């Protein structure tokens, strides 16, 4: 695996060719536009440092790929420029625990 060496000041990192998500290296407001992997991407919402967004359309059930590695599966259709997180993708292994309502651990604690 080849790790990136240095950022280019665009605030955006596509970690490996073929990834369907990119990572923000600076806080990016909604409406930010960038050319990524040959497409014009417009951010649908704000993306914080280290968080990720789709760089092409991803269908429900498709793997999310970061640094060339699958990191989970889309739980619904995702548009290019859309923020990608627990609301639209999930693990292939063990569900993610957050402090949001609806999670099993939160329910059990009530």
């Amino acid at each position, binding site marked *: 695996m080849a790790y990136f060496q240095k950022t280019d000041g665009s605030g955006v990192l596509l970690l490996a060719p073929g990834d369907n998500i990119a990572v923000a290296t600076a806080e990016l407001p909604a409406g930010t536009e960038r050319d990524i992997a040959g497409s014009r991407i417009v951010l649908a919402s704000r993306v914080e*440092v280290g968080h990720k967004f789709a760089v092409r359309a991803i269908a429900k059930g498709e793997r999310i790929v970061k640094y060339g590695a*699958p990191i989970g599966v889309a739980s619904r259709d995702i548009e290019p420029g859309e923020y990608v997180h627990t609301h639209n993708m999930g693990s*292939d292994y063990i569900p993610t625990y957050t402090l949001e309502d609806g999670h099993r651990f939160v329910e059990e604690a009530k």
Partner: protein
Amino acid sequence: MINAYLRPDGRKGIRNGILVAYLVECAHHVAREIVYPYRSQGVQLVGFSGCYPNSHSHKVLQRLATHPNVGAVLLVSLGCEGFNKGGLLETARESGRPAKLVVIQDTGGTRKTIAEGQAWVEQTLAQLEHTPRATMQLHELVVGTKCGGSDATSGLTANPAMGRAFDFLVEQGAACIFEETGELIGMEHWMAQRAATAELGQELIKTVAKAARYYAAMGHASFAPGNADGGLTTIEEKSLGAYAKSGQSTISGILKPGDAPIKGGLYLMDMIPDGDVRWGFPNINDNVEVAELIACGSHLVLFSTGRGSVVGSAVSPVIKVCANPKTYERMADDMDVDAGRILEGRASLDEVGREIYDLILRVAGGEQTRSEGLGHQEFQILYKSFEPLGPACFPSAA
């Protein structure tokens, strides 16, 4: 190279402290009181809380009592607990270290035991000033790595930079240990490709499968709500970042907590108990794994954080590498390295990797890390059980 402390058993350490170990929670307060006045003079507190004997916890304390960074050992027992205190005392004495056992019930209670323990610490501190020194080469150094309070920047900056430092160390013949098998879930096939032999590759895959099974039974991955707040969505994504700490070297073997690497190279420490799932979460916090890395002989531990962990450890210094530039701004006093510069384009991955490597040499030479300076000595041992490793786990021994 490194001006180290030479132990009677021939091993070399980079610190020269007294370890005070309580052998059950009931002896914790007395042990802490013994340490307190000397806490900035290298007198450190460790211990095991449980009353029931357990071979893993015994092995970890044995390895720490004979760790090359430790000059002398004081064991503090209540008296009626299950820990094999005689066996541990004998191991420490056989290593040639000054070692003593105080038993609270025999000594006559709290006050008398604190006084007896402190008298011994006073006298032993003076004795340790005459510890012989010896030159230590890089191939004698053992370094562990850990990440804690991770966010999505950890895997982009600090972890791969620590991986670069690991690559430099392995090239020089040092032994480097990565672990957190629960945070390698999803990376097992990538990792197997880096194994020294195909058989070791299969063992690496099995190790991660065991971790996935263990955490699935717990109903919870090695994943905290703060990880999600920091942009990590799944355990696989966290694993992708955690895996970067291992660098790019060939993987030479697998260790279990307390096993020392037999020679230089890169090792995976498998910290998930063997057999039935019966011990609860295998890493209830970061320090459990840090203690296990140190029990494998780590002279120091690299620790990356994105959200901002402040922990250090007893026995071995912890070098804190901050992944997130915003966290560094808020918590610079706790951080040894600002790896978030990579994200801002102010440094390259290789530059920060080299900076970490240089700092390792200085810390091995005696420079205090931030967590050492702040007095952090977090420590914990859990109940676990392990089966011995098969020959496929250490091909270089063949």
